[in-house]
């Protein structure tokens, strides 16, 4: 009887996930000239003949479907076979009076499997182990239930959809990964069973794999040497090993700790070489941030999802489509830790959030690479970067990180429209309250980062021109936003800073927008502006490419 329940519960979406849209269409076409009422249909067996081939099914599950045609896996004969059986059962049900059985089954929850041995039999140990690791990494399935089935969406290295019918459970389930027993099913079963009865799913797994553990242990050893010897006693060898370890962390799928270590190593090397601007304090802050992530990664389960603690390689960014973007500016930059790069900034009008397309290089490893030159020559989705400035764009297809970094990988498609007007941009200027909200959200989300500086677009005018501050080695001025809140304006040391300070201090008429990184230093709201936007258009403070 369970075969018939399964067949009755199969939807077109399920068939499409098992086969594909084209085969489903061909299946419907083939079924047109057939008479399913004449096919053999028993409790646990069904059989038909179409196109000179024989189709049969010997129980619940797509893996039990067979066709004698030469196609491997699913074929349009099997689609027509399932569609015909489903239609026959539906008409039988309509004819039968008082069909109470399906409504009683509607409450069944076959994905709740409390017995560990039964889970192992149904799902397999490898799938369970993988799902347990995903759980430890903070990955969850998004489950939706209706009277007939559970549909789960699982976002891990791509997006997968799993459908489990209430009537027959896992045996009749289908997953878009194409496997009959997969970790996606195991994740849903473990997640829902644990929610229903936490005490019966005691199994815990490590979030990290062996190579990640090994890389982090090597990091611990390196840190022990650093603190024991001190920065004064650090040798060129320690620096070189730190660089190599940063690469190892990146290769072990821990790009964020790898990046943080690379910065610490640069700070250590600068201090070792007594370079101007280097400080032990800077290195300590880098060390604290690296250590916070390292300790968070040692916990089981992880305090935050793994991608937020380990980072995500550009090749694993999530796909997006039809994303509206206003290109609001760009800058070329260098960091105290020895990196140079450029960033192109976009504003998403729907969410008010920012997206960034960046490229950067270590100056020590790429002495010939110039950010300004790269900005002038590079393309984003086949378009020169400077041609996008001030334009309304639509990312038809692309990939983006959870932090809003755009990848620009091959296959990305961008449509470029007309220039954005000053009036429209002005509507997206953030109020003090919304700036604070974004700042707090950064703080909450990136719990272990020590300096959240979200991008902000602020309607403001400069009241005190930036002046060079000898002790801070930076330029500092004052602005007032359109709500009357004073803002400290800070320009970091950069070859273009004097020019930027001059640009900021020029008198302007009408609304002026400042785009930059916003933070709170001491008690003072502080903006590190990178672009001034007024009726004359965008003026990039740290980019000479126009």
């Amino acid at each position, binding site marked *: 009887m369970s075969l018939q329940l399964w067949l009755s519960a199969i939807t077109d979406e399920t068939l499409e996930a098992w086969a594909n849209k084209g085969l489903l269409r061909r299946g419907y076409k083939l079924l047109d000239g057939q008479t399913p009422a004449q096919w053999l249909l028993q409790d646990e067996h069904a059989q038909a003949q179409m196109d000179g081939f024989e189709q049969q099914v010997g129980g619940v599950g797509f893996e039990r479907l067979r066709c004698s045609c030469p196609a491997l896996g699913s074929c349009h004969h099997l689609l027509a076979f399932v569609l015909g059986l489903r239609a026959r059962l539906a008409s039988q049900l309509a004819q039968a009076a008082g069909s109470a059985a399906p409504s009683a089954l509607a409450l069944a929850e076959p994905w709740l499997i409390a017995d560990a041995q039964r889970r192992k039999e149904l799902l397999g140990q490898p799938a369970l182990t993988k799902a347990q690791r995903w759980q430890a990494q903070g990955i969850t399935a998004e489950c939706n239930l209706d009277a007939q089935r559970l549909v789960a969406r699982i976002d891990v290295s791509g997006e997968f959809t799993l459908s489990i019918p209430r009537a027959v459970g896992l045996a009749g389930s289908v997953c878009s990964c194409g496997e009959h027993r997969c970790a996606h099913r195991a994740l849903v079963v473990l997640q829902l069973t644990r929610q229903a009865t936490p005490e019966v799913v005691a199994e815990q797994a490590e979030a990290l794999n062996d190579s990640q553990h090994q890389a982090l242990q090597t990091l611990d050893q390196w840190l022990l040497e650093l*603190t024991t010897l*001190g*920065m*004064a006693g650090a040798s060129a060898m320690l620096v070189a090993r730190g660089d190599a370890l940063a690469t190892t962390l990146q290769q072990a799928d821990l790009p964020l700790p790898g990046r943080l270590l690379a910065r610490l190593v640069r700070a250590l090397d600068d201090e070792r070489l007594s370079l101007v601007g280097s400080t*032990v304090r800077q290195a300590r802050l880098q060390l604290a941030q690296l250590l*916070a992530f390292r300790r968070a990664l040692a916990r089981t389960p992880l305090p935050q999802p793994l991608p937020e603690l380990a980072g995500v390689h550009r090749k694993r960014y999530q796909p997006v489509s039809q994303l509206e973007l206003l290109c609001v500016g760009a800058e070329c930059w260098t960091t105290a830790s020895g990196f140079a790069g450029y960033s192109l900034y976009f504003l998403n009008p729907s969410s008010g959030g920012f997206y960034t397309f960046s490229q950067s290089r270590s100056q020590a490893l790429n002495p010939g690479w110039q950010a300004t030159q790269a900005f002038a020559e590079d393309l984003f989705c086949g378009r020169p970067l400077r041609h996008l400035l001030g334009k309304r764009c639509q990312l038809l297809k692309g990939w983006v990180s959870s932090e809003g970094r755009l990848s620009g990988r091959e296959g990305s498609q961008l449509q470029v429209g007309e220039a954005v007007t000053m009036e429209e941009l002005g509507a997206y200027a953030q109020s003090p309250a919304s700036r604070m909200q974004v700042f707090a959200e950064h703080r909450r989300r990136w719990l272990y980062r020590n300096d959240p500086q979200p991008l902000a677009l602020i309607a403001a005018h400069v009241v005190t021109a930036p002046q060079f501050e000898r002790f801070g080695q930076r330029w500092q001025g004052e602005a007032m936003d359109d*709500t009357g809140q004073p803002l400290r304006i800070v320009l970091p040391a950069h070859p273009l800073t004097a020019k930027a300070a001059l640009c900021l201090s020029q008198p302007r008429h009408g609304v002026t927008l400042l785009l930059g990184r916003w933070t709170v230093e001491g008690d*003072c709201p502080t903006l590190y502006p990178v672009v001034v936007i007024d009726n004359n258009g965008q003026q990039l403070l740290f980019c000479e490419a126009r």
Partner: protein
Amino acid sequence: MNQALDHWLDSWGEWLDSLLATGLGSPSQATRAHIQAWCADAALLGFAVQSEQAERLLQGATSAVQRHQLFLDLLLEQDMLVRLNAANRLLASGETVETAAIQNQSE
């Protein structure tokens, strides 16, 4: 209270920097004196655990690995407290902005 806490946190950062610069094996006399003075303030401010950890850092019987762990614990703790302090300031400044906005509206 806030000023005392700020000063104490800054002082904490300073001796952490001194230790990170010279290494944990042989802190200078000046750093030792700095840590001891800081420990006295820590006790007054109610940070007894941190004070005890810092004192253990200076003891000869503490092994290199233990010293390393203590140092990292204290370094993280200081960083966390500084950020917590900054968040409190942020909340306070948020309230100030909000109050000013309400006042502006009512005027």
